[in-house]
């Protein structure tokens, strides 16, 4: 890593990245709420699919070592902070099983996801929200939104 932490010394500040952690936490919260609703109900809704699609696609790309950050797309996570947090969280889970659960939740066929699929996905999004909030709450980075 050639970059050391250089002291920011400019009068036109660019420190807005922390907000991306909050954005990720909100995404995870939306997904959790949608998964809970789907787990209780009988149908998987568009809301469920829309809320987990970016995470599912990003996980798949990380699993296959694709260049997530260099190839931005609205279909998956695009911010450095989002991708790093996703890496951290997914590394503590079984990537194959997690990807399979996500696929199962995204599928539009008749077959209903298993209780394990719901459980693993919920565990993943809970961890993602907590981890994102952990980074967000870092007292050393308090200048969100500014650029």
């Amino acid at each position, binding site marked *: 890593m050639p970059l050391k932490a250089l002291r920011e010394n400019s009068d*036109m500040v*660019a*420190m807005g990245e922390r907000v991306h952690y909050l954005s990720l936490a909100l995404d995870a919260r939306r997904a959790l709420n949608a998964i*809970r609703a789907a787990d209780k109900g009988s149908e998987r809704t568009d809301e469920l699919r829309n809320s987990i699609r970016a995470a599912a696609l990003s996980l798949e790309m990380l699993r296959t070592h694709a260049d997530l950050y*260099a190839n931005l797309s609205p279909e998956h996570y*695009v911010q450095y902070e989002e*991708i790093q947090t996703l890496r951290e969280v997914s590394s503590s889970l079984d990537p194959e099983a997690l990807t399979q659960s996500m696929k199962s939740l995204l599928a539009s066929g008749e077959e209903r996801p298993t209780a394990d699929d719901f459980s693993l996905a919920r565990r993943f999004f809970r961890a993602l929200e907590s981890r994102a909030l952990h980074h967000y709450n870092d007292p050393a980075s308090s200048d969100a939104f500014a650029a």
Partner: protein
Amino acid sequence: MLEQRNYLRHDLTALYAFIESIVEGVVSQRNSTAYSPAAIRFLDFVHALAASCKKHLANWRVQDDEEFEDRREELGTIRAAWRELHKLIKPALDADTLQVPSAVVDGIVRRFQEIHGYHETEFVLLHTAEFNYVQIRTADLRNLSAKIRAIIPDSPEFPTNLGVIGMPYSQGRTAFANCLVAHEMGHFVYRDKTFESSLQTAADTALKSVFENYEGQSQEQKDRLIRCVARWAEELFCDLFGVMLLGPCYTFAYIEAYDLSAVLDSAGAISEERMQPRMEFYEYHPSHIFRLQQQSVFLRESHWWDHICKSQARFSTLLQLLRCIETDAHVAQNPTVGRLVPALSAIVPEIRKAAFTAFEEVDDGFALFSQLNRFVRDYLAAGVVPSTLNIRISNDTDDVVAVSAPPLVLLNSGMEFYLTRTDELIRSIQGEDQNQFDCRLRWIRRIEEWVAKAIEDESLEKEETHVDPVKNGDPEAPRP
């Protein structure tokens, strides 16, 4: 022992109180102080968001332990969202119209509104305690408010066409220093137009070709390298945006703000001793010299350059000297991040392309400046506010047209006068001494006030020209 669920009432109340404490000033102060329409839209958004969040919390329940596990962190996420807003609300409440330099910044906003797609964009101005001009990432605010709506369905959308800019509280009375807000407007457009994605990809491509063993780096390391180059690219974009928005007065304000003319020695050549520290890159910004060099190259290819060379000898010398610095010199001056500089240099054409895209079909204003500049300067030299320029168009003394100069012309002519003719103005006034600081300060303030007043008058004239006679009750107006 009580289950954690039983403490929820306390935790919910604490969060409710947190939100209440943040917004309690909004309602009372908004109604008692004069705010710009843009600020009122922002404060209304905050107020509506608080109401929806409090209602959400009042109805927040969990049925069992499993739901508790799934939903407890939601309170932390909502709290985090309000921590973000917290930092904006007090500055917004403090920045009433008596405190912000509305005339000059309004003039710059009117120039901004000439850009395609931004005709109705307004900016809320906040005061920052530090000497920083900052663009609040309204694209992120808008994005966050949409995400909050997915959790709290009746929460408001972030107002459309609204930007937020922070400026140093101390700079309210200045005119020319505030040209730097153009850079912050560049950030607004950069995020809005999603130039970020194309430049991140360009950074990756450039790193592949110029960074030794780039492919051998881990994916995390590659991401960090891309992010660093992309951040620098955004700053360069915003500088070029500032130049395209306001012309050379942006660059002159930049030089003055960072005292960059200090790199010239007594003979007008580059002082290596003072230049080298200014060539060091920051984590978030290219070095000042690199940034000024790019502005110099950009201006040299513009209509403005010949005029700069004729009228601004000191600064044009500086800009010409910087133009010749090779990329290798920047690399050598940056032992830690120097290896990334060639990648940044490689994507400068993409950055320039993005700036030109943003200003597609927008007049650079130079032609009008060329016509009006000497009149504005003559008015200032005579101590007259250049609001309405009476220009004789033939030898007939009665053959005069009255012209109002737009903000772009007033700022550039005013800046030129300030930089080159302040001494002459002071010398022309009996009893004033150009060598006395208080005297100089007094007349510099006057020049800025005259320019600001002219910008304000031009704005009022435009308002009168565009007045809606039906809305304003003109009985003679034709009815639709």
